């Protein structure tokens, strides 16, 4: 690598860092329940070495609030909380760092994949800069989602798998990092094995037996490392929890439909084949897959969930669309082996996102961000060298570059100025202010009743000052706390309006009809109200 390349690379990393660290913690406006739960566990472990339930930090699965979290993000968040204190910045920092590392790793993966090409360093740099600014990457780098950090470890494991082509023992590193990725985010246990085996497509000139050996070795190491996870007593309930979300695995509609059609055919033999319920399952699965190739989702408006997207940009910029399609075209025309590897990678990355019913899902398919970046990078380099030679090529390149810059700046403008207000509700805005309000006022009252929802205790624990050795001894019902000293988290009952020395906090739509309630001054939100009974 020449000095110019190193300089450009450092600038790209700098841009990536700035985009991910600037006002980290305040944009997005507030933390979502999963982030707060991670924060509480991190705070607890930082204080006492045990999580909020009193279990040791060294565990393959944390109970959290009953959603069975994987440990790696919480461990990193603990270190971050220890250094920076219990703030939004600290909880989101691991993801931001992972985002910068993603840019770093994409460069090296790119150089490895295109090792035969002379312009591989430029493709690497292009892929890196694409990742640095890509909404799909930037948005998830600024939020505490384990999936994003898991994606980074997956990239690392892919890089090692690619190194293993020349230096076989890297396969073990790949397996170890793959296992680390699974300990960060659940769905990677399906993704890693497929990607590992697919990486052989890129290396092999022909099929050799040593590939089988390496593949088996990698999978065996990977499997062995997952044993603690499988043997955890939380493993079975965690699977049940994940399966309980609405997904295509629920076949009631398909069964009914299939039966109606077969009845119309008077149960003819061919009808049982043509209208087989599993055929409709396949159709549902493919339909969910296809949703992730919707051009609107990719380039125009992104995910409908405002925690996963701003709603004003696709997961890739609109101006990246030509780059993406040129990259796709070049892979089909010239780089077929790389193309097949990327296709397998992307398709398996879409699987966890395609089973549940919320499709398209930008977070569950985050493992595909590398593919998107690589294709755009390849497309950028190819398009540049194609246009450079044409008559008005340089003009077109200039105009196109300006369009891309404009696209990026208008995205940043929207993200920093308009998106925070637009996404307030999605980010549970207001709960921090409620928790702080409760913490301030609780000393003036004998009882505090919090009738908002069953997870407010997490905000109180995070933003309050608590000795976690005591918290760990508190009674958890259904993995949630209903009492913290004088604070009770429950529904209101009739007799509450008579009790003395009581502060009540509630949701305006449920309790507003009762008099004596006022909006909470610091919350800037219509949803939360309080009543003070001295």
């Amino acid at each position, binding site marked *: 690598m020449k000095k110019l390349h190193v300089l450009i690379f450092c600038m790209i990393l700098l841009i990536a860092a700035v985009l991910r660290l600037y006002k980290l913690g305040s944009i997005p406006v507030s933390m979502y329940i999963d982030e707060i739960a991670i924060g509480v566990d991190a705070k607890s472990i930082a204080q006492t070495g045990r999580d909020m339930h009193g279990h040791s930090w060294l565990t393959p699965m944390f109970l959290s609030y009953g959603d069975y979290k994987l440990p790696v993000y919480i461990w990193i968040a603990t270190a971050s909380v220890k250094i920076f204190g219990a703030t939004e910045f600290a909880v989101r920092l691991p993801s931001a760092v992972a985002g910068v590392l993603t840019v770093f790793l994409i460069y090296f993966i790119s150089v490895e994949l295109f090792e035969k090409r002379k312009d591989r360093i430029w493709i690497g740099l292009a892929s890196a800069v694409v990742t640095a600014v890509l909404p799909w990457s930037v948005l998830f780098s600024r939020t505490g989602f384990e999936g994003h950090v898991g994606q980074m470890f997956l990239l690392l494991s892919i890089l090692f798998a690619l190194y293993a082509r020349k230096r076989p023992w890297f396969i073990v590193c790949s397996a170890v990092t793959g296992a680390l990725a699974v300990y960060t985010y659940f769905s990677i246990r399906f993704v890693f094995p497929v990607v590992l085996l697919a990486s052989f497509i890129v290396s092999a000139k022909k099929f050799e037996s040593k590939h089988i050996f390496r593949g088996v070795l990698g999978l065996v190491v990977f499997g062995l490392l997952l044993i603690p996870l499988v043997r955890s007593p939380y493993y079975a309930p965690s699977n049940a929890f994940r399966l309980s979300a609405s997904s295509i695995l629920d076949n009631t509609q398909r069964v009914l439909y299939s039966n109606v059609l077969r009845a119309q055919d008077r149960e003819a033999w061919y009808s049982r084949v043509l209208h087989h319920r599993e055929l409709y399952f396949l159709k549902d699965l493919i339909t969910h897959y*296809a949703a992730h190739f*919707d051009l609107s989702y990719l380039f125009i408006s992104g995910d409908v969930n405002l925690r996963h997207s701003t709603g004003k940009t696709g997961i890739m910029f609109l101006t990246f669309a030509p780059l993406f399609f040129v990259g796709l075209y070049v892979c089909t025309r010239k780089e077929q082996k790389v193309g097949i590897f990327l296709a397998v990678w992307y398709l398996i990355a879409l699987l966890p996102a395609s089973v549940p019913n919320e499709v398209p899902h930008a977070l569950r398919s985050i493992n595909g961000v590398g593919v998107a970046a690589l294709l755009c990078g390849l497309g950028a380099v190819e398009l540049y060298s194609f246009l450079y030679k044409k008559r008005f090529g340089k003009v077109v390149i200039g105009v196109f570059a300006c369009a891309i810059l404009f696209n990026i700046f*208008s995205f940043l403008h929207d993200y920093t100025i308009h998106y925070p207000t637009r996404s307030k509700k999605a980010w549970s805005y207001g709960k921090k202010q409620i928790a702080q309000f409760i913490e301030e006022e609780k000393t003036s009252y004998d009882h505090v009743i919090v009738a908002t929802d069953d997870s407010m205790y997490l905000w109180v624990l995070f933003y309050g000052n608590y000795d976690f050795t005591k918290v760990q001894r508190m009674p958890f019902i259904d993995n949630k706390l209903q009492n913290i000293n004088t604070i009770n988290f429950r529904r209101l009952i009739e007799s509450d309006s008579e009790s003395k020395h009581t502060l009540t906090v509630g949701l305006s739509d449920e309790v507003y009809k009762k008099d004596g309630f006022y909006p909470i001054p610091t919350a800037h939100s219509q949803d939360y109200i309080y009543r003070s009974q001295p």
Partner: protein
Amino acid sequence: MKYWKLFLIFILLLAAFLRLYKITSIPPSLYWEETALGYDAYSIMQTGKDYHGNILPILALSSFGDYKPSGYFYAIVPFMRVFGLSELAVRLPSAFAGIATVFVVYAIGSALYNKKIGLFAALFYTIQPWSIQLSRVGFETNLATFLLAMGVLLSIKAEKKTWLYVVSALFFGLSAYTYHSERIVAPLFGLVVGVRFLFSYLRSPKKGKPSLGWAVATLFIGIAMLFPILSNLKNPIIAHRAEETSIFSDPTPVLESNALRAEDGNTVVSRVLHHRYVLFGGLMLQQYVKNFSPTFLFLTGDENNRHGTHEFGLLYHVEFFLVAAGLYIVCVRRTFRHMLPVMWVAFSALPVALTVTSPHTLRFASAAPAFALLSALGIVFLSEVFGKIWRKKLILGILAILCIESVVYLHFYFTHYPVLSATDWQYGYKDLFSSLEQLKKPNQKVFVTREQGRPSIYYMFYTKQDPRYVQSQDAVVKKDQQEFLELGRYVFVDNIPPEKGTLVASSPSKMPKNVQPIQTILNPDGSVSWVIWEQQ
């Protein structure tokens, strides 16, 4: 080489069979637009005026106040002379248009590329779910697609015989008089053809220059046909449909634009960045792009039950790979001949981009032949990628898959679809009115509810009302926009006025609990469509 002709004849016979077999019973009944087309055509056939009394409308007929383009009405008239006022006459123009388009697709394919691709394209279009669905219903869009495709074919052939440009312009113009979408697509094609002609004229050597006279005649015809449309852009005769469906009638982007500018403190930059035209542009782009969603094209079609079966998309699943391969070869070759189908598809999605409902099977239908061309390009390209041994096996393999898919689709379409979608086709009106006519006493007033939509036109159609009588009543009766709310002793209501001794036709929910129905009209799946009862 003679085999080509045999194949083509077989394909055309198959196309005819698939579009004509049981055309009046699958789909199970005429929906309200078909009935309106039919009765107005009958009125024009008998009297030269539509049923509101307008003499030989050229641009559009007011129908229900929705100003349908005139083309399809006039197309029905010759069929109605032969088959009388019947469902068959209403659907035949579309069916024949569909069959004819199969031949046009073959002709375009063999003119642009070679006979092999032409035959494949014709075959794909013959069995295409999109084409079958549209050809078996009196959809104006299907006739317009045929006219547009003819225009495209003739403009290709005109490169050798310049006088064909005139006929091509005629067909493009006629298509714009048949369906709203073509009012945008046809002029765009005209522009492209015109620019190409100009370039080829300027580049050709002095002696070999094509005749300018024909070009001038073409221009004249094109403008003459466009002029009535352009000069009536503000008139409801053209504008009504646009207003009803346009995305620009939605105030949301304007409100959003103002909100965004306010958040930015109304700076100059923000007034440009968040200008409502920018927001409308973004909305247009989204609507445009939705028509290319793989789910819409290959898996489920759009939400309307009259536009497709939902069991399949507009194209077969395997065509995803064929179309992708076709697009790939277009990107590799990059000649005008290869770009033409892509351009065709791109133009066809523009009208949909301007409307609120996207994706839309009918408004995008002008692209259906182009997709068949792309699939044909794809299958031929795929077969050539592999060596000679695999070539035949691959083609046979793909054709086998396509055959299986089409059998599954046709089974669903002919067996299940009529039953599942009967209510979407306003099934029941035919039996209803024949029963009402039998049951009603002379001079008895009859109330029919409007729950299933536009009952008056069904009354006129199925009782073969004399158009002259209807025209005489046009100025007198109560109407909702232009839909008749009463005719003769029949009154068409939303809520049934209590009047003793009247006969009522409604859904079971509107019948009082203590009354017994005199007759019940059932849907094919056994559910109740109408009950006829008497008011006490």
